[in-house]
């Protein structure tokens, strides 16, 4: 299989370049990550993140043939050759396919991604009805791989101000949680021309989410919550 991979080594000071590889997939190699792991046995200087190899950790997000995705969930069958691999768009490159996600996680932390429940803690767990629990479906599954934010033009141009689809999906996960008592504060924080309203409903986020989630729908729900609050 032919591959063309973005290479950058900060120690040499050279400009990034594309390097061509040719390697045969062997029996058992089903996903792109399998091939990358095999490739690393040939060229151990190639740098990329990976951990769980089953779409749970979100480490191996990269731009695959022009679209963001997880190498571990991308089937080798049907991939157009040469398979062109580049780092996530818009993120500073640390080395090869590894990007700096500091800004991305700063936005994640800014939305307070934890349950805020005032009042005395109950003796047992905080109960929810099945309906209240169902409202979290499609929200809690986000693995923070950044495929969505790194495919969002609004995030490319305003990465320091726009929270981005991933952070906003996470924000709505807590707004939608019946046990959370900080909805008003959360909405106050999001009600900003950049943090939330920089979204232009392009829906690139939903197009590339490897977990099949819809950040654009979560953003729409936040907007509606703000509208309902103001009317």
């Amino acid at each position, binding site marked *: 299989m032919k591959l063309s991979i973005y290479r950058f080594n900060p120690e040499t000071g050279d*400009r990034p370049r594309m390097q061509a590889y040719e390697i045969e997939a062997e029996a058992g190699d089903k996903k792109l990550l399998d091939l990358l792991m095999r490739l690393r046995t040939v060229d151990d200087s190639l740098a990329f993140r990976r951990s769980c190899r089953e779409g749970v950790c979100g480490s191996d997000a990269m731009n695959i043939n022009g679209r963001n995705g997880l190498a571990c969930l991308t089937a080798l069958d049907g991939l157009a050759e040469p398979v*062109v691999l580049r780092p996530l768009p*818009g*993120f500073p490159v640390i080395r090869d396919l590894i990007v700096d996600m500091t800004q991305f996680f700063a936005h994640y932390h800014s939305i307070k991604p934890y349950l805020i429940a005032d009042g005395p803690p109950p003796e047992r767990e905080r109960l929810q009805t099945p309906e209240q629990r169902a409202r979290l479906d499609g929200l809690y599954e986000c693995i923070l791989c950044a495929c969505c934010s790194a*495919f969002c033009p609004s995030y490319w141009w305003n990465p320091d101000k726009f929270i981005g689809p991933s952070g906003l999906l996470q924000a709505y996960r807590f707004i939608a949680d019946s046990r959370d008592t900080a909805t008003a504060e959360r909405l106050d924080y999001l009600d900003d021309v950049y943090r939330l309203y920089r979204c232009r*409903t392009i829906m690139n986020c939903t*197009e590339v989410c490897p977990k099949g989630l819809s950040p654009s729908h979560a953003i*729409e729900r936040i907007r509606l919550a703000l509208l309902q609050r103001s009317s």
Partner: protein
Amino acid sequence: MAKPGDSRPVFLDLFRIRFPIGAIASILHRVSGVLLFLALPPLALGLEMSLRGEAQFEALRSLLPAPWRIVLGTILAWAATHHLLAGIRHLLMDVGVGSALGTARASARAVLAIALLAALFAAWRGLS
């Protein structure tokens, strides 16, 4: 994007990114908006001039040869149609109408197709 002063490279070559149909409709919404914005002052001036009388109308016609009028008319017909339809699509999606992925893809395709048809119609009218 890297912060100012950050010397690390950033991959953001838009020609190497495979954009979904919604993104193409969105960027063309902006392109058509810019075209309409730039065209508005000369078009308003032209309208004002053409209404002054037959001589001025003919003078205006002679300013722009026929082939250029057709090209300009075609581009503006495309821009006006695309901008109008993409704008309505955007407004509807903002209130949750047609914001599911499948519907959004279909509406983006429809906007692109109808704008193209409007351009072809304008070109045909210009040539006939």
